């Protein structure tokens, strides 16, 4: 949940299957963070997390709310989707594991790197998924943090 110290918040709606608008929220988030004067490396990590999460919603879920909360020390992204959920979260976090269709792969996605890459770019990463209900991601990116190797 966004903390009380947050000074900037914005909410985005993402619709499942809407490939034409894929990346719109992530690109807007990137511009907002740049306008807030946040350093390039932190902006890049947040934008990558937002884009991967947005693509996951578009490819697999029905709809989602993406919340951005920026405080002096960190960027928080919460992505709460309505969707089929993930039966085996551990497996979904394995690099290369994917349930993507051929159509998704033709678009350059679905290589099984989305969730692992979100985790790599996050300082704090929490995932809660319920089959038949949806998935929630809580991500914190600290301004002095780093991408994991």
């Amino acid at each position: 949940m966004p903390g009380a110290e947050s000074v900037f918040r914005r909410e985005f709606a993402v619709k499942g299957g809407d490939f034409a608008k894929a990346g719109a929220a992530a690109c807007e988030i990137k511009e907002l963070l740049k306008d807030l004067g946040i350093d390039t490396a932190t902006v890049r990590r947040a934008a990558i997390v937002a884009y991967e999460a947005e693509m996951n919603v578009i490819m697999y879920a029905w709809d989602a709310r993406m919340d951005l909360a920026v405080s002096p020390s960190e960027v928080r992204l919460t992505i709460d989707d309505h969707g089929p959920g993930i039966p085996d979260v551990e497996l979904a976090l394995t690099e290369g594991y994917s349930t993507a269709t051929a159509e998704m792969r033709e678009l350059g996605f679905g290589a099984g790197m989305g969730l692992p890459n979100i985790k790599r770019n996050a300082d704090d990463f929490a995932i809660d998924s319920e089959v038949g209900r949806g998935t929630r991601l809580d991500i914190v990116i600290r301004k002095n943090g780093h991408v994991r190797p």
Partner: protein
Amino acid sequence: MIALKDVLALLDGELLTPATAPEAAFRKVFASDLMSDVLTSAEPGSLLLTGLANGHVVCTCSVADLAAVVFVQGKRPAPGVVEEARARGIPLMATKMTMFAACARIAGRVEDGGHARR
């Protein structure tokens, strides 16, 4: 470093975003058709060589701070994609060369802009 004009000359390429500065230069190159790999492994500021020519390429480059794109093997993005790239300040080029041939031509002039996965 390799200048955009030298990339065009080596790849017999065409600049799809004419307003781009020909002196723009790149220190590293990343080659992939998978945007997932670009988001995971490409270093910021790299030139991207790809056979994928949809709007996700421009969006991915914008998100991951890649500097420019070469579409290989005669692939050409739709006018809307070129417009999007122009708006985001990302130069686009096209070459008829295969990915392998294009990489071979510029290898040695630039560093690998990716990092291998463990």
